[in-house]
């Protein structure tokens, strides 16, 4: 058992990776898909097809609208039926492109074979262009455009590429499955990203509750053809998969408040992203598929699945194919039980970052009535950022902005450890998240004011110079 983990806080939710033994199955195509234009962090993509257009799988249908944005490709071949707002998993209207599926024809230049291409292109710009053109975004949760993350700002040097295979969320097994089934492709993806980052060393961090995955990666690495890549077993601890926590665990460095991982020489990419990078660069295949786990405490073993899905598939279609929503399900979650989003209905569709369809029973998930704080300090012990949620909660209720900033509300990573461990069931994170928003808004306003003041001072001084 490994002893390597992050140094502050953390909790130990039960593992619950009940779907781990289920091999990935390919979902058949639905009659219609709705592809969201906002599948990444940043500005939503602009549709570049019109109603009635015929599209092929892998064809660009949305173009980035800004620096931090990404291409969106059609995941199926067929006819564009409509373009317009449709509700996303939070129920907010987002531009979607509706495509009626006809056959399964792919765009030109995409290598659909399963042969592993080991030769890595040597041109950095070529690699970055391919990653960008194929719409690759971070699949660990934040869906940050990958080509942006792989282009460190001038003056910053990547010292270590960390591949995130922690999968610390209970229940989720999609990363575990691809680590087992597509090990070498993931390792090649890592080798590609290393090359882009100037051949820095790469560490693949995997929690020790997945020994099969660790062994599989070790076997590939043992071939000797992948230099500079190593695997690091990590002690199981939530939220190990958090970027800041993983950097702490692997490199023993901490990103300062408001900073980026690259400030300490780290670039963190999820293993699923690595696979997408492999497909984008080696096969010229856009990011239109991903693996999703159908799991939950109210499902029996026969109804647990790991599916390879195409983006834009309605969740209701996947649920139906998997055998319907189970009887005892009280909450449906897209993502893990700690950080996933509860969804009100299955009308929404899958996006690039979809990682699971999780059904939890009422007993497992319904919140107990909140009691009184007994000042046990468990929330503060659990917080992986070293914050004091009980204090943030109080400061938020008192609307004390200076206090919130001094108590670092802006550093919260919304991992849920505070609420998870509160014996009084106080909805700490619900309020701390609000507090974070308040603190960040205030900090932004102050920074803008300071900038404006500095510019005004500069302008007046240059005026004086003219006189």
């Amino acid at each position, binding site marked *: 058992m490994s002893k390597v983990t992050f140094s502050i806080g953390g909790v130990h939710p039960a593992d619950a990776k009940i779907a781990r033994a289920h091999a990935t199955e390919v979902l058949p195509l639905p009659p219609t898909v709705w592809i969201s234009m906002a599948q990444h962090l940043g500005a939503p993509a602009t549709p570049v097809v019109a109603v009635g257009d015929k599209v092929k799988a892998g064809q660009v249908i949305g173009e980035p609208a800004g620096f931090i944005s990404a291409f969106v490709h059609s995941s199926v071949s067929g006819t564009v039926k409509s373009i317009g707002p449709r*509700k996303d998993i*939070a*129920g*907010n*209207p987002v531009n979607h492109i509706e495509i009626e599926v006809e056959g399964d024809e792919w765009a030109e230049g995409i290598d659909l074979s399963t042969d592993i291409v080991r030769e890595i292109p040597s041109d950095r710009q070529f690699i970055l262009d391919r990653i960008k053109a194929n719409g690759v975004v971070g699949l660990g949760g934040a869906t940050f455009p990958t080509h942006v993350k792989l282009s460190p700002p001038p003056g910053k040097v990547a010292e270590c590429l960390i591949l995130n295979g922690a999968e610390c969320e209970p229940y989720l097994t999609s990363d575990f499955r691809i680590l087992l089934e597509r090990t070498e492709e993931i390792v090649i993806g890592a080798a590609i990203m290393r090359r882009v980052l100037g051949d820095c060393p790469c560490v693949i961090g995997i929690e020790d509750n997945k020994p099969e995955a660790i062994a599989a990666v070790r076997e590939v690495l043992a071939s000797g053809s992948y230099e500079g890549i190593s695997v690091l077993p990590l002690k199981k601890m939530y939220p190990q998969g958090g970027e800041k926590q993983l950097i702490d665990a692997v490199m023993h460095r901490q990103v300062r408040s408001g900073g980026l991982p690259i400030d300490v020489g780290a670039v963190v990419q999820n293993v699923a992203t690595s696979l997408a990078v492999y497909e984008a660069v080696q096969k010229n295949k856009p990011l239109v598929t991903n693996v999703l786990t159908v799991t939950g405490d109210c499902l029996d073993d026969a109804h647990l699945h790991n599916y390879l899905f195409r983006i834009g598939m309605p969740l209701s279609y996947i649920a139906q194919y998997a055998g319907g929503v189970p009887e005892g399900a009280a*909450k449906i979650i897209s993502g893990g039980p700690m950080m996933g989003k*509860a969804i*009100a*209905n299955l009308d929404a569709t899958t996006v690039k970052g979809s990682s699971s369809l999780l059904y939890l029973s009422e007993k497992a*998930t*319904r*919140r107990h009535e*909140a009691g009184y704080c007994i000042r046990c300090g468990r929330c503060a012990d659990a917080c992986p950022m070293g914050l004091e949620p009980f204090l943030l909660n109080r400061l938020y209720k008192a609307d004390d902005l200076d206090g919130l900033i001094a108590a670092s509300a802006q550093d919260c990573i919304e991992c849920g450890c505070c609420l998870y461990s509160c014996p009084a069931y106080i*909805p700490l994170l*619900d*309020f701390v*998240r*609000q507090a974070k*928003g308040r603190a960040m808004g205030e900090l932004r306003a102050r920074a803008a004011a300071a900038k404006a003041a500095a510019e005004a001072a500069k302008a007046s001084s240059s005026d004086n110079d003219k006189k």
Partner: protein
Amino acid sequence: MTDTVIWTIAIIAALGLVLSVILFLIAKKFRVEEDPRIDEIEKVMPGANCGGCGFAGCRAFADAAVKSGNPDSQFCPVGGNDVMKKVAAILGVEVKEKAPQVAVVRCNGTCEARPRVNEYDGAQSCRVKAALYSGDTMCPFGCLGCGDCVDACQFGAISMDPATGLPVVDDSKCTGCGACAKACPKHVIELRNKGPRGMRVFVSCINKDKGGIARKACANACIGCMKCTKVCAHDAITVTDNVAYIDFTKCKLCKKCVAECPTGAIHAVNFPILKPKPAAETPAPAEAIKKEVSNE
């Protein structure tokens, strides 16, 4: 024995004298010169420190008024015109009268009209709920029902009606400070002119969805059908984004739109009841003025 008592008294007295002299000198040295009118104005202010005027409290309001010398750009919604007149008098100027305002809840999606489609299980806070998702009904615009406005009100003027799940404003207690409007993440609450004897007509819905979708989400929703704009003789009603809005500065309280609205989204309140309603209604109490809801 007597010596001890005398000495004790003498020492304490001397100590007191010396310290009071020091205190006097310090007070003189560090004295902050303030316009005495600030104190005077603060005395005539309501003293609720509610922040409804946009200042941190009553003293900040007084300070700003004295500094500008003319309180016309400021208004104390709690004290209203009476207080503003007093403030103006202290500063030796005159102010224009402003119409008193009241908080108006622009959502009538009651529990029956707007069925719940999922069960919210998070913290009972509208802001938390609004940040999470579009709400537990099909209407993504309406009241979320967690009562952030009730918490924001310093005057106890808002309460949640358990029957409808909507907040109710007590006109007699509402000072129009606007704290509730600021607290509402959905901007359901609006400050409107109170109107003569409290009579006012407003659209109690802000659903911007197209008519069909809005109607499906809530039986009482404004569907943007434009009927009200056609009957309005005063150009007070505009329909933008599928929702009607009545400009309270133009509305002449004729109530024609109320009868015209097919979903009952337009409310007229505090009008005297002229003729008794049909049998289904409970007989009106003896009061001359009663809330009249326009639902057919």
